[in-house]
């Protein structure tokens, strides 16, 4: 479905853009048909940047993103519109995704203007109703209302319904449930699971590890723009290889287990990126050596389908 080949993004920062900030470095992975892949990382790890590059909201510095074997960075106008027919996204904050002066269903009429100008009224209303029902909303209750009259969970499901109107094949879900309450969170997650069973592929971007486990088959752990570990969700969670993944798994607050004494290194977080392993400064492994600081380890396949980038 979607394939990333050595994708990098470097932002220019500083007064005149003189400084370079590598946000994503040589990231390669793919999302297959009907698969949910979690992209997990801390703030600043580049997970949203990857999502935005797939959506063509920002340009790619180097590398290629292929959608059904077509390089998306080269497609133009008409083809681009077709691309958005297949690929849509839902973002973190449902409250700021709407224009408060207009009614919430305006997001549907915009879709109609852009993509379905020839569809008849009755046909269109039917389509809207069915996609609202697909996300578990009652059309009578939610249509014709302003954004402030709807709850966060409803607004978020509205946005998913909007994406469904286009018969999409790939959804970028960027932290879509972090703003929702615990009691409605699971409903949105279950909705994604249901859509997945109908053949939708989802890139699920999150920092919440338990949510990632609940929904996805494969997980990708990012650290400072690099993939440190990637593979089957079960393996990543219960048999992590990379010291960073291990630390991350030990810091997740869980309801069935108290935290063990794992040192969290705070000071070295801001260290400069060097030639060596990105995690070198914070690495607590007793087997850490000078080799780690000199050369960046490649992402190697440790066991079938399970990749990690660590010399140890």
């Amino acid at each position: 479905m979607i394939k990333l080949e050595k994708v990098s993004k470097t932002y220019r920062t500083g007064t005149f853009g003189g400084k370079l900030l590598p946000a994503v470095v040589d990231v390669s992975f793919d999302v297959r048909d009907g698969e949910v892949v979690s992209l997990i990382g801390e703030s600043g790890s580049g997970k949203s940047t990857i999502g935005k590059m797939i959506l063509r909201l920002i340009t790619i510095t180097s590398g290629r993103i292929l959608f059904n074997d077509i390089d998306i960075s080269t497609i133009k106008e008409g083809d681009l519109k077709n691309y958005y027919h297949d690929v849509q996204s839902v973002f973190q904050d449902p409250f700021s995704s709407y224009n408060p002066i207009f009614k919430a269903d305006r997001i549907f009429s915009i879709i109609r203007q852009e993509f379905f100008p020839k569809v008849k009224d009755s046909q269109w209303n039917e389509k809207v109703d069915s996609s609202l029902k697909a996300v578990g909303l009652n059309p009578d209750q939610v249509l014709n209302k302003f954004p402030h009259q709807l709850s966060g969970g409803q607004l978020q499901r509205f946005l998913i319904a909007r994406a469904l109107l286009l018969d999409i094949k790939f959804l970028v879900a960027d932290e879509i449930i972090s703003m929702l309450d615990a009691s409605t969170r699971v409903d949105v997650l279950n909705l994604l699971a249901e859509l997945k069973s109908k053949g939708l592929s989802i890139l699920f971007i999150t920092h919440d590890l338990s949510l990632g486990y609940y929904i996805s088959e494969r997980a990708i752990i990012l650290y400072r723009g690099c993939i440190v570990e990637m593979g089957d969700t079960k393996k990543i969670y219960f048999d992590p290889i990379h010291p960073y993944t291990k630390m991350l798994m030990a810091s997740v607050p869980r309801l069935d287990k108290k935290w063990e004494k794992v040192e969290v290194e705070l000071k070295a977080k801001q260290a400069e990126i060097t030639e060596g392993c990105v995690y070198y400064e914070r690495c607590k492994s007793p087997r850490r050596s000078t080799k780690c600081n000199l050369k960046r380890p490649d992402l190697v396949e440790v066991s079938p389908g399970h990749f990690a980038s660590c010399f140890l």
Partner: protein
Amino acid sequence: MSLQIKNLVVYYQTLRGYVKALDDVTFSISDGEIMGLAGESGCGKTTLGNSLIRLEPPMKYIKGDVELDNEKLPVWNSSQMNAFRFKKISIIPQYAMNALNPTIKIGKMISELLSSRKFNYKKIKPELERRLDLVELTHDVLNMYPIELSGGMKQRMVLVLSTLLDPSLLIADEITSALDVSTQKAVAEMLVEFRNRKFVKSMIVITHDISILYQIADSILVMYAGKLAEKASTNVIVNTPRHPYTKLLISSLPKVGVRYTEKKLSGIPGNTPLLLDPPAGCRFRDRCPVAFDRCFEEPPFVEIEKDHYIACWKECTEND
């Protein structure tokens, strides 16, 4: 008893009448207790925290008593509360880390804050530096502007600052929610460390994330729509809750090791009631799977076992 609250009622004044954000709240916190305050957004947990220290319009005090270390707190009188703020009771408000003054250096800000409370910065500085070491911040941060610090660093700075005068009660409102898991863990553990070192006698930790509370809190108080639902020790709330709302809330949380294909979790159907005109009786009634006739009456918040308080007719009557 460090903190005792009796029948506290605080409403918000709006043009359309009172919003009953905090209705008849009674509970106490013992010395050295870290109490977690959990609930969905809009359930009144932040209102409870704020009303103990800064009860200002549009919030309106209706009735109730608050006692801290056997001393009555004049929560209804903002100027009289000044004698207690920062010294006896301190708060880390939501988004505190974004509220640091961006135009002056952090050290200067602390010294101004202390002199406004008639304390000498020079005298306190050695203690301040000792505590900065404790939270793994370098002393250089005092010469930095807030923009130079990361979110986790700012949150730790705010923690040190608000506990500098060893208050008896610290209210920490969502201090870990904007942080990464690893930083979150460090900050949460620092809260416990501060309690263990007696910098703070007791704490109210407000968060929507029950799994964090499970790691650090001694007891958890669950609120629903402006009312108390259940208070018990952390283990009891997480493993054997009695209130139907707590049960549903705990069971809807995704856990590591639970997958939708193996065990499908479900949310709580329905929405929280509007607090402008809440339904009489139990406010959870409409969403409750076990509601019955008696729920049209207001359930009292009673102790059903030692240190286990609950407001639910079903559970109380079954006990009789």
